[in-house]
């Protein structure tokens, strides 16, 4: 480290000599070729006309080339890209709108279908109920009719039976009288007696 800095110190003045030449124009620089006249090259007025001329030529051409060819092209590329991006964004927005509309339509259809299904279910339910009611009524009516018929038959049978009970009782009474008393009772008497007992 020490050695290095020492060497650096040593070689610095040699370089410094050349460097100070940069500030003082009159200083004859170290190792300057003859054509530079000992002037620090960037400040040598002898080179100014040629440098200005070639700067004007090269920069002028460069300016024209950029203005006429490069910049319209780059600007065009960027414009086209921006247009394309806005176009794509519009397209995307439109597609999103369509998708949203489709979802809304689907949901509406779904809701409609639900209400319709409910209505159909309700209707079917009502119809089934009504049918069941009608069937029940019909069965009840049939049963009522059968009951009535049965009751009527029972009452006729009962009436017949009751009628027959009188004759049977008379026959039995006359037979009992004959057997017990040994004589014959008149039919009218027996009938009256039976009637009075039956009451």
């Amino acid at each position, binding site marked *: 480290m020490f*050695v*290095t800095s020492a*060497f*650096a110190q040593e*070689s610095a003045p*040699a*370089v410094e000599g*050349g*460097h100070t*030449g*940069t500030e003082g124009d009159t200083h004859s*620089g*170290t*190792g*300057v*070729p003859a*054509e*530079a006249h000992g002037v*620090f*090259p*960037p*400040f*040598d007025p*002898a*080179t*100014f*006309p*040629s*440098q*200005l*001329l*070639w*700067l*004007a030529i*090269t*920069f002028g*051409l*460069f*300016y024209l*080339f*950029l*203005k006429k*060819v*490069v*910049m319209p*092209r*780059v*600007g*065009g*590329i*960027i414009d*086209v*890209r921006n247009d*394309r991006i806005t176009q794509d964004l519009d397209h995307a927005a439109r597609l999103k709108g369509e998708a949203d509309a489709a979802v809304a339509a689907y949901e509406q259809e779904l809701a409609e279908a639900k209400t319709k299904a409910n209505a159909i279910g309700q209707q079917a339910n009502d119809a089934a109920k009504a049918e069941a009611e009608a069937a029940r009524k019909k069965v009840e009516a049939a049963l009522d009719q059968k009951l009535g018929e049965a009751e009527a038959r029972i009452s006729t049978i009962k009436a017949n039976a009751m009628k027959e009970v009188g004759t049977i009782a008379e026959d039995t009474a006359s037979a009992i009288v004959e057997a017990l008393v040994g004589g014959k009772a008149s039919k009218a008497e027996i009938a009256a007696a039976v009637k009075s007992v039956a009451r």
Partner: protein
Amino acid sequence: MAADKVDPIHQFHINKLIPIEIGGYDLSFTNSALFMVATVAVASAFLYLSTSSRSLVPSRLQSISEMAYEFVGNMLRDAAGTQGMKFFPLVFSLFMFVLVANLLGLFPYFFTVTSHIIVTFGLAALVIGTVVVYGFMKHGLGFLKLFVPHGVPVYLLPLVVLIEVISFVSRPVSLSVRLFANMLAGHITLKVFSGFVVSLSALGTLGIAGSVLPLAMAVALTALELLVAFLQAYVFAVLTCMYLNDALHPGH
């Protein structure tokens, strides 16, 4: 020969490649002119070829060109508004020229065009000339309002106007000297440190070991110079934009 190699000024010498003399003026095609041509050729070729495919999705090179274009465009729009966009080709070509000239100068054995005051002064004079000519064309004598800021008390006005005039006149000088001095100083420093490496390593084993330090320094300085090359091109373009803004809106 050894002195030539270490001499940090040698790189700024101008050599005539094709001697031309017209009307007593030396208009030779020099190494400086050669590197101006090279700068223009490299910059034009890069911008032209990188954008030749005009792809919607840019390649890396194409996006570099587009970035430079949009960078300068935004810079100009921020500084001088949309009216300033008529100067976009000028600012963009100045930026690209200075940037590429600076970058080319970083290659060893290459000549740095922007390390000569007359070149940077030529560019600065172009800028200030544009400002003055456009300012008077657009605003007539109203352009002189540039030197009279608003809201200054009357008794201070002569002083302020004097200061404004001096600051305006010094603009081409500061604009050109800033770029020139940065490139010159950077290249001299770089050369000095590289010279240390050469002269130290000639001193034997210890010297070679010691030359590592200036070598590391030279590497670091190269990185710094790369930054400076970008930065100075940027500064030159930004100041150009601000001066053009004065030409467009002289009333502050």
